[in-house]
Structures are given as structure tokens and as C-alpha cells.
């Protein structure tokens, strides 16, 4: 056991800089104090306190049998542990032995995650032979994790004997998934015992917010090279998707490579030529912690955040976690670069556009990484003491910044929206409507059709969003740009858009 208050500071790492808070880390009562400094990360100086960072990037080769349930479970474990799949081989992918081996050699994975299932490891033996052929001589050799039952693991043992390997239970079962996530995170943590992985901090934060609020909470985090969605309920159940390396900074070019430039460009509320935009994306990707001086560069970061969240939702969906899970949280907390946009309205707009809450949701955002720091403290205490949240109970309410309430109206016909409490509003809202009501304090909302709920209106009031889910943008620039600009203007999200 560490002595109480061993850690007096907590650093939250950004791309090349850190933000440091003073902290009291004590199993009985923990909190953050003052923001001490923002500055370049000093690689030579060991962190004096807790350190929240992304850890070592983990590039994974996924070798899987032809079983959709096994594959979903394995992908889910990788997504939950913020590992990046750089090459994927399936037993039925039709590729030759040489093609598989070449793909593995060229990818140079840090780790091979073998999904052997529980009944037919024969079909994955050929994949493991390709791994053995391609990577036995590579320095450093990839480590191997085999997920499957004992019989399957035994079947693969001789094939993989030249690798450092571990066996975890079948990822379809909760214990197998948890074991895989633990091992993968351990690889990312390396030997740095004071390191709290950012994804762990976000999960602890979501749980703390849910317990403080007494309802399910979602944390949406977009950093330079990762995008996270975490859903937690007060009972302790957590569902998480941590998508690496997509983000609005270093991962900007990866967002464009994956989504396509036009899907990023569509969120920018002005006409932009594609080649020029691509140059901005590439330069941003190679300039850590760059500050957007020009409003156009800022809208680019906002657009990247939109697409990164959309892909995190899509990836979660591909593992069997329905996006509605994240959309159904009555409390939404925004962190990372998403919370550092200069206007609160910009953060709220991204949440409304990209997350598309399905319930009446109160949206908060982080202040200078205070919430991430709290989550980091909770995660560190959990690692050391096993219990995590008592020490920071109630602290998330102090450090979060309230934005407003999002009211989704999904109807093909005009719907009646009644808002009482901090504002009075009772009118029909036509499909496509998107506007903010001035309000403050607790509000009750009833939407014809059955949706009702409560929220806390902040400086941005109550956002009525009748654009429908999924949000469809006009394909032509001439229609899309004015529509997106209207949405920005509705929230006064950009100075030039408002003008």
C-alpha cells in the first residue's frame, strides 16, 4: 500500500505538453487543487506524481476464426483497451499463405491477438503458421495473446512456441474479455507504475459522474490521437470504446484516411477547397498541440471531432455495442480537446451533431482537464486499493462546467415540446427545427410522443433538436454549407457564423 498523499500532483498528458494539477490522493478523501502549470513534457524528468497519458501505442494483428460472435467479442476487447488493429486475418479471408505472411511482416505488429474460439482451432492454425513464418525473426518479436478455451490454446501452443505468449479465456465471456483488456492495458502501461492510462481515467470518471448524478452517464473524449466513448451506470456497469489513433490532432490525418476528406469537410460551415483542407490536416497531424489561430483551422478541428466520434460509434456498433447505449445517458460529459474549444456552444454542437443524444440529456464539459485528473485519481486508487470512487464522491460536480440541455425530437410530423421550470415553452416544433431556448436551472421537458425527462439548463439553455437521427446532411455544397452554418449560428458557435 502506498502512503496517503504520496502523489501531490497529477499530470494530464497532451500531445507534447502536460497540464499539471496539485492533488491530494488519499483513499479516504481525494481531490485536485490548483492548476499548477502547462508546459512541454520533459522526457528526462520522471513524473513526480500521478501521470495520465495514453501509454505505449499498441499495434495489434488480429487473427480470428470464421465466427462472427468470436470476432465481435475480440474486436470489443481491443476497442475497450485502446489497441489499434493494423492488420486483420480471418481464416476464411481467401488470402494465400504468402499474402498473409507478407501482410504480417509489413505491418510489424507489437502484439498478435489470436481468437481461437472454443471448438475449431484448426482453422486458425494456418494463420498462426503465417505469423510464425513472418514474425519469428522480427526484432522485437510480437507478443501473442490467445483467446479461447484450453483445448484450442493447447492446439496452438506448438505453433506459437517461438513467441512469448499468454492465454486468456474466450473473449465472449466476461472474464475472458476482462482478462484480455487487463493484459492489453498492461502492455501499454509498460513499467511505469505511476501511469494511469487515459482510457482508465475516463472510465473511472464516467462511473464517478454516474454515481454523483444517480443516473447513467456518458463521457465523450476527443484528444489529439484518440477518441473515447464511455457509458457508465450508477450500478457500476461500464461500456467503453476507445478508438486509437483517430483524433483531432496527431490523428487528424487518420480520420481523413478512414472517413474520407468529404465527410470531414461536410461539417465546415463555409466552402473550403479540398486540397487546401488536406494540407491543413497533414500539417496539424505533424505539429503536436498546435493552436488554431484562424477560425477556419478551428472549424477543421471541430469537423475532425465530429467524424472521430462518428467512427467510434460505428466501431462500437461493429462489436455489438449499440450506439444507442451511449446516446441514452441523461448526463453527458465532454472532455479532451472537445472540452477546450473556445466557445461552450462549439462543444455542445459537436455533442448534438455527432453523439445525437436519444434522451433528454444535460451536457457538461471539463475545465482544464480537472475531470480527467479526478478520473485518473480514481483509477489509481482502484489499481492500488481495489475501491475507487469513495475518495472522490461528489467532486465531479464541483469541477464540471454546465453547458445546457439537449432535447431530441425525432418525429416525421410537428411535435409539441413543453419545457417548464427554468423556462416556459410550449409550442409545436417542425421536423428540422434546431434552436436554443434561454433557460436556467432545473427544467422538465415533455415531448409529444412519449419522451420526457429532466435536465439542468446552463448558459446555453435548452437546445431543441428536431433534425432527426441519423442526421442527414445535404450532399451538395450549395445546400449543405448554409445548413451547417445555420446550426452554428443557432448556438452562436462561431463568431463569423453569427455575423
Amino acid at each position, binding site marked *: 500500500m502506498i502512503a496517503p498523499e504520496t502523489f501531490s500532483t497529477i499530470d494530464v498528458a497532451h500531445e*507534447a*505538453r502536460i497540464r499539471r494539477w496539485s492533488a491530494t490522493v488519499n483513499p479516504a478523501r481525494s481531490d485536485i487543487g490548483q492548476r499548477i502549470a502547462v508546459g512541454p513534457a520533459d522526457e528526462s524528468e520522471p513524473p513526480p506524481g500521478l501521470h495520465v497519458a495514453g501509454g505505449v501505442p499498441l499495434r495489434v494483428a488480429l487473427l480470428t476464426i470464421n465466427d462472427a460472435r468470436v470476432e465481435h467479442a475480440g474486436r470489443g476487447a481491443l476497442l475497450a483497451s485502446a489497441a489499434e488493429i493494423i492488420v486483420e486475418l480471418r481464416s476464411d479471408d481467401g488470402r*494465400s*499463405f*504468402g499474402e498473409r*505472411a*507478407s501482410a504480417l*511482416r*509489413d505491418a*510489424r505488429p507489437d502484439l498478435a491477438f489470436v481468437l481461437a474460439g472454443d471448438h475449431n482451432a484448426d482453422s486458425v492454425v494456418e494463420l498462426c*503458421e503465417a505469423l*510464425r*513464418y*513472418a*514474425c519469428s*525473426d*522480427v*526484432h522485437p518479436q510480437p507478443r501473442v495473446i490467445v483467446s479461447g478455451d484450453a483445448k484450442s490454446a493447447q492446439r496452438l501452443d*506448438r*505453433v506459437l*512456441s517461438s513467441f512469448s505468449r499468454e492465454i486468456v479465456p474466450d473473449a465472449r465471456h466476461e472474464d475472458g474479455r476482462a482478462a484480455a483488456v487487463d493484459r492489453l492495458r498492461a502492455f501499454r502501461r509498460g513499467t511505469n507504475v505511476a501511469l494511469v492510462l487515459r482510457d482508465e481515467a475516463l472510465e473511472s470518471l464516467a462511473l464517478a459522474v454516474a454515481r454523483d448524478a444517480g443516473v447513467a452517464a456518458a463521457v465523450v473524449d476527443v484528444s489529439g490521437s484518440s477518441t473515447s466513448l464511455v457509458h457508465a451506470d450508477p450500478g457500476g456497469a461500464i461500456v467503453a470504446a476507445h478508438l486509437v489513433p483517430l483524433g483531432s490532432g496527431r490523428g*487528424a*490525418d*487518420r480520420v481523413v*484516411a478512414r472517413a*474520407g476528406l468529404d465527410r470531414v469537410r461536410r461539417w465546415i460551415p463555409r466552402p473550403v477547397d*479540398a*486540397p*487546401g483542407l*488536406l*494540407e*491543413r*490536416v*497533414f*500539417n*496539424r*497531424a*505533424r*505539429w*503536436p*498541440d*498546435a*493552436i*488554431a*489561430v*484562424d*477560425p*477556419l*483551422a*478551428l472549424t*477543421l478541428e471541430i469537423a475532425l471531432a465530429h467524424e472521430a466520434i462518428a467512427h467510434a460509434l460505428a466501431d462500437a456498433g461493429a462489436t455489438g455495442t449499440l450506439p444507442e447505449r451511449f446516446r441514452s445517458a441523461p448526463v453527458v460529459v465532454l472532455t479532451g480537446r472537445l472540452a477546450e474549444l*473556445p*466557445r461552450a456552444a462549439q462543444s455542445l454542437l459537436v455533442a448534438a451533431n455527432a453523439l445525437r443524444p436519444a434522451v433528454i440529456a444535460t451536457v457538461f464539459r471539463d475545465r482544464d482537464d480537472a475531470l480527467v485528473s479526478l478520473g485518473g485519481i480514481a483509477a489509481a486508487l482502484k489499481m492500488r486499493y481495489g475501491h475507487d470512487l469513495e475518495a472522490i464522491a461528489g467532486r465531479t460536480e464541483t469541477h464540471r462546467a454546465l453547458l445546457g440541455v439537449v432535447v431530441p425530437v425525432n418525429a416525421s410530423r410537428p411535435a409539441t415540446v413543453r419545457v417548464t421550470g427554468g423556462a416556459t415553452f410550449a409550442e409545436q416544433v417542425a421536423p428540422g427545427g434546431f434552436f436554443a431556448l434561454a433557460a436556467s436551472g432545473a427544467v422538465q421537458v415533455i415531448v409529444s410522443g412519449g419522451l420526457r425527462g429532466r435536465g439542468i439548463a446552463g448558459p446555453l439553455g435548452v437546445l431543441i433538436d428536431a433534425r432527426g437521427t441519423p442526421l442527414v446532411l445535404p450532399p451538395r455544397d450549395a445546400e449543405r454549407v448554409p445548413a451547417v452554418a445555420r446550426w452554428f449560428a443557432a448556438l452562436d458557435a462561431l*463568431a463569423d457564423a453569427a455575423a
Partner: protein
Amino acid sequence: MSWRHGRWQVEHALPVGVSERAHAGDRVRAGDIIGSGTVVGSVVAVPGARHLGVHATDLDAVTRIRVGAEVDKGAVLARSGRRFARAAVAPLEGRVVHRTAEGDFLVAPVVDRWTVRSTMDGEVVRSDDAAVVVRGTAWSLAGIAAYGPDAIGELALGVDAPGDALAPSRIDVRLRDRIVVGGSRIAAEAITRAHACGVSGLVAGAAPAGGLRVVYGDDVTAAGLPSREDRPTLLCLVGFGAAALPREIFLPLVDLAGSRASIHTATARLFVFTEPDAARIPAAMPALVLAGDFGGVRPLEGETELLPEDVRFPSELESAALMTRDGAVPLPNVLPFDAPR
């Protein structure tokens, strides 16, 4: 990292299917073949240990062909027994690619061959089927991203000033097998023309990202795209779009023009093989500034002053700032030339 003359260790990754490679201790020059091998087609599994009645771990004792060898159809791969012999026979002309853990042989036809050339003058210090590492002495300059295969050739200037863009009209077949230095920008037209003229590689401050997509495909990213295919080789030193080279970087390139050089694309690094006193390196390297709209990168020139308070920029973001002759610049947007990016 800016210009430096010193000892460098360069790892040359080898594709699968190595037939021959240089061995540790061998002396090589940039351009020498240090590894060669084959690309194989669909493999055919030839039953081995079980068919021969031996345990997989004892297969070596009865194997007659080493893994990796090329064989004719009908060649005996392994043979056991005396009076009632059993043999594993190659079903086709090709290569014994691999021996499985179960003791079976995988044989495949050869469909192509590849070679890997050294990008360094020096000594092989490590060699295995995955990589050959060469250690040697050279001038070196690191870029931020490189695209295409490794390149070797004589360094040649394609521009007269560091702020000039490399014009396609300056490229012709006389630059064949040269590494051509552009200035602030090399457009897609210049890249493709250079490749068509047999230019070995291109070095410039920047290349337009859209042009990179045209040449290398939509999967291209800011991290570079090392490859082995027959494609143009390009090294971006500073950024994307347009980025004038600092004089402190460009002038040594002028000094070193005419020397043998290479581009190692996996590490995005230019090597020049000549004497340590062949170039004059300024004592201080300039910083680089990212444009406020992220559209380009330029050297920081003139007097600067750190402003005492945070500045609010047109984007409404606030940051510590440096006052330059072009106005206030956010401090994070100013980096030393050799800062890790």
C-alpha cells in the same frame, strides 16, 4: 534532427521469402544489394512428419532440403525408412517456403523476385531473415515524412533558392538516377515527371497533400508511406503544402551537391556520403512556425519577443505567444527545426 555528420545505424526491413542476404561483418556501399528473395504464389502443403512416421521434432534427421531452397518438381524433401521407404516429394517446381509446427512442408511456385539495397556505406552489424542493419558514417538530415521506396543516387540541385518550387520544366532525363533537391514545394506534376525521367528521389521542404494522394493513393497519411513498389521517392523535410527551406538547411545541400546520397524512407532520412568538412553547418538552426490556418510551415526569421500575457487569437483560443515580425504567434506553433514531430 538537423544536419549532422556522424555514425548512423540503418535497418533495412526485408520482405518475407529471403533467399540470400548480407551477413554480419560484410562491408557494403549504398546501392549494394544486401538481400534478395522471392514472392511466392499459393502454397501446397506436403505431408511431412506424420507421413514419414517421425515426430515433428525429429524431422531434421530425415529432411534433405533446407527451408527456403528452390526445388524442382519431384524433388525429395525428406525421406525415411530403408526397405520400405517413405518420402515427401515436391509437387511442383518452386520453393520450400516453410515447415509447419506439425512437420509438413509448404511448397509454392515462385512468381516474382525482389531485392533490397543498402542505403548506407558501412558494415553489416545485424542480419536475419527480417532485417539487415548497416552501420556507417555519413552526413544526415531527417525529414518529417517520406514516401515510396528507398533511393540512392547523386545529389543534385533542382532549384536556385530555398523558397523556389521545383518546376517540372527543370526535370529531364539528365537527372536520371539523381536525388534532386527541390525548394519549398514539389507538386504532383513534378513528382510524376521526375519518376518518368528516372530520377531516383526528390527532397523538398514540402509537397502538396493533395498531390501526394494523386501519386500514392488515398490511403496516404502525414506519417509517410514507405514501400517497395516502383513509385517515386519523396522526402518532405518541413511540412505539407509549401514550406520554404531555412537557409541553414538549404546551404549545406548546395555544398553537398554532387555527392553520393540516399533516402531511407522508413526513417524519412537523407544520407550523404562525403567528407565531414564538405559542408558548412551554421551553429544555430532556425525555428519553424506553423501557419495560423495550418496551411503551411515557414522558418522563423527576424527578432522575436515572448509576450508577457496570453493572447486571444481570431479563433478565440488563448495562448502564450511570441511576437514576430509577422505578428503574434502561439507559442506551441513555434518549434525548433529538430523538435520531435
